[in-house]
Each structure stands twice: as structure tokens, then as C-alpha cells.
């Protein structure tokens, strides 16, 4: 009786592991196929532009407002702590570094995953459910080139721009609170920030991170949509999976990238 239960549990673990590995392999092959279909899709710029509109332009408001508020909170909290050590003038460094290196790409990526990634998954999943993808194949139109690749590239192109906007609005929010409200000297704010933050490594590393996150979120979104069970329930669980997996992927990738960027390969 007990042995039966143990075997059953082990069997379930094994099935889960096999399922996870095969899905990972499928996702990797899917990624390769999307890349193969990309040149054909990118030649028809109209399709990609439309996806940049849906993924990027429509995310502008949430990204910019969040950036502003995150920056304002950083300004308040940062000044409060720094001022204890008489270093309130270093507020610019604190805010700039945290936004450009970490918060910009990561928070913009999380917002992007929940705002645009979920929409992409739901759209492709519903197309599959209503057999639009199958209909396209019947008409000799490859859905990977017509539907999936443009959405993937729309996300990849939008993400770094959104992250940069997030960081910019954050710095502006911290400026509003720190300089305008609290009264940190504006020359010290900008001067210290510019002295401490370099374009190479800090800003470029932030951009590299946001590009990687863009690829990860877009790939997960289109894959989950394409792989969704063609039912209402399947689309809903695929959308949920997109947000969860994309968020975890962003945080895990962020750690790995940060280790390589700031510790080097040699350690």
C-alpha cells in the first residue's frame, strides 16, 4: 500500500520532468524556426510595425507612469537614508545607478510581460482555438511568418526602448522629488550622477539586459500562444503561464547577466 503510493509519486515526478524537458526542447526548436522565418517576416515591415504599435506604443503610458513613480519613491527613500550619512548630494548616483543598471530593464520587463506578453499569448491562442492558424496553412500562408515572427520582433524592438523610457522617467521623478521638493542641489544631483555613471559599462549593460529580456518575454509569449490547448481554458492557462514564466525568466536572467557583467567571466 505504502510502496504503491511511493511509486505513484515517483511516476508523477518522472512524467513532470519528461514533460518539462520535452517542452523546453520544443521551445528551443520553435525559437530556431521563428528565427528562420524572420527575414521573410521582416521584409514585410508593415506587419512588424503593427506589432510594435500593439506591444510598444500601447505600453507607453503604464511604463512612463510607473517609471515616474518608481523614481519619485527612490528619490524619497534614497535621500532619507543617504542623508543619515550626510551624503544627500549622492542621491543622483544612487537613483541613476539603480535605474539604469537594474530597475529600468527589470521592472519595465515585468510590466511588459504582463501588459504585452499576455496579450500576444491570448491573441495567438485564440487564433489557434478558432482555427485561424489552420485556415492560414490551408491557404499556403505560413502562420509562423505571418503571425508569430512579427509579434516576436515587435516585442524585441519595443522592449529596449520601453526600458530606456522607464529609466528616463525614473531619473526625472527622482529629480522632481530630490531637487524640486527636498532641495538637493541640482548641480550636485546631475554632476555626481554624470561623474559616476558611464555610458560604457553602465548604460550599455542596461540596454543589453533589456534586449535579452525582450527576446525572452517575446519568445515565451508567442510560444505559449502557439502551444496553447485549443480551448477557452487552454488559452486562459497559457496566458497565465506566459506572465509567470516570463517574470521568472526575467529575474533569473537578470541575476545571470549581472554576475557576468559586474564580476566578469573569471569570477
Amino acid at each position, binding site marked *: 500500500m505504502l510502496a504503491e503510493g511511493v511509486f505513484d509519486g515517483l511516476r508523477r515526478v518522472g512524467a513532470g520532468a519528461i514533460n518539462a524537458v520535452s517542452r523546453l526542447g520544443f521551445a528551443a526548436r520553435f525559437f530556431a524556426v521563428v528565427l528562420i522565418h524572420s527575414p521573410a517576416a521582416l521584409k514585410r515591415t*508593415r506587419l512588424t*510595425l*503593427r506589432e*510594435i*504599435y500593439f506591444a*510598444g*506604443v500601447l505600453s*507607453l503610458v503604464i511604463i512612463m507612469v510607473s517609471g515616474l513613480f518608481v523614481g519619485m519613491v527612490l528619490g524619497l527613500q534614497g535621500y532619507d537614508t543617504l542623508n543619515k*550619512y*550626510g*551624503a544627500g*548630494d549622492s542621491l543622483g548616483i544612487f537613483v*541613476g545607478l539603480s535605474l*539604469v543598471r537594474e530597475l529600468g530593464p527589470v521592472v519595465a520587463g515585468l510590466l511588459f510581460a504582463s501588459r504585452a506578453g499576455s496579450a500576444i499569448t491570448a491573441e495567438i491562442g485564440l487564433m489557434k482555438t478558432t482555427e485561424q492558424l489552420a485556415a492560414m496553412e490551408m491557404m499556403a500562408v505560413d502562420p509562423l511568418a505571418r503571425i508569430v515572427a512579427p509579434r516576436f520582433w515587435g516585442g524585441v524592438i*519595443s522592449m*529596449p*526602448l*520601453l526600458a*530606456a*523610457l522607464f*529609466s*528616463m522617467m525614473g*531619473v526625472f521623478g527622482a529629480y522632481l522629488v530630490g531637487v524640486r521638493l527636498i532641495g538637493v*542641489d*541640482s*548641480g*550636485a544631483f*546631475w*554632476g*555626481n*550622477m*554624470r*561623474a559616476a*555613471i558611464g*555610458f560604457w559599462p553602465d*548604460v550599455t549593460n*542596461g*540596454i543589453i539586459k533589456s534586449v535579452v529580456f525582450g527576446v525572452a518575454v517575446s519568445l515565451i509569449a508567442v510560444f505559449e500562444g502557439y502551444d496553447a490547448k485549443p480551448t477557452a481554458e487552454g488559452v486562459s492557462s497559457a496566458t497565465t503561464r506566459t506572465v509567470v514564466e516570463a517574470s521568472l525568466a526575467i529575474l533569473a536572467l537578470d541575476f545571470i547577466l549581472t554576475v557576468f557583467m559586474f564580476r566578469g567571466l573569471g569570477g
Partner: protein
Amino acid sequence: MNRTAIDLWVGIFVTIGLAAIVFLALKVGNLASFSTVPSYRLEARFDNIGGLKLRAPVKAAGVVVGRVDRIRLDPKTYEAVVALKIDNGYQFTKDSIASILTSGLLGEVYIALDAGGDAVLLGDGATIPKTQSAVVLEKLIGQFMFDKAGSGGGK
């Protein structure tokens, strides 16, 4: 949503996105070029400017009257030449003293201008004749230790 509207919005989005990257790269370039307050230039020569940075404030009696505009080294005299941009509303006498000070132990470095009693004012591009260099804390401590060892000895 028709095509031209989408094109327009994507164009706006890409443009402000790239502008944000440029902003981050330059960190709001040189703020002085944005300031609308008319100003004039003064120069001051220091033996040592310590941790003085560009855009550091210039204060007279604690009030910000200008900004550090440019810092370079005179290759002949090995003095630091600091160019100051002073707001037009403030004029300083010819015997003013410029000194480099730090606000607090860890605070920002700034230039203090102490006005003198001379009747002649410094014009645009003039050099402030009297200056006092930054105090380098390590040197000061070293000197103190040295003096202490020299005078005290047996203590």
C-alpha cells in the same frame, strides 16, 4: 486604426525611445546650455582643486551665484584653471577670494567667493587673483602626525 496612424504612433514611440537612450547616455548633457539665466565668466587658478567637479556650485555667503563651467590644467604653470559662470545679477570686487571648500565631511565640493572692499569690479573673462586651494585631508592628517611626532616625542 488605419495605417498612417499606426506609422505615426510607431514613429513617435521609436523617436522618444531613442531620445531616452540618448538622454541616459549624456545624462542631460550640459545643463548650463539649458539655463536661461544670463551669466558671465570668471577664471580662477588653483594649485590643487581636490575633488571639484564640473557643474559644482559657486557660493557667496552660502548663496549659489553660479556654476563651475570648465576645469583644465595649465600646461606651463601646472595650475588648475577653473572657469566659473556667474549669474549677471551678481558682481564681485577685484580683491575677492575664491576658495575650494567641502560642505560637511563627505558632502559636495564647492567654490566659495568672498567679496572684498575694492571699488573695481571683475568683468567678463577676468581672473580672480586671490585663491585658496582645496584642503586635502590626507595631507593635513600627515602633517598633523608629523608635527605631533616632532614636538611631542616622549608622550
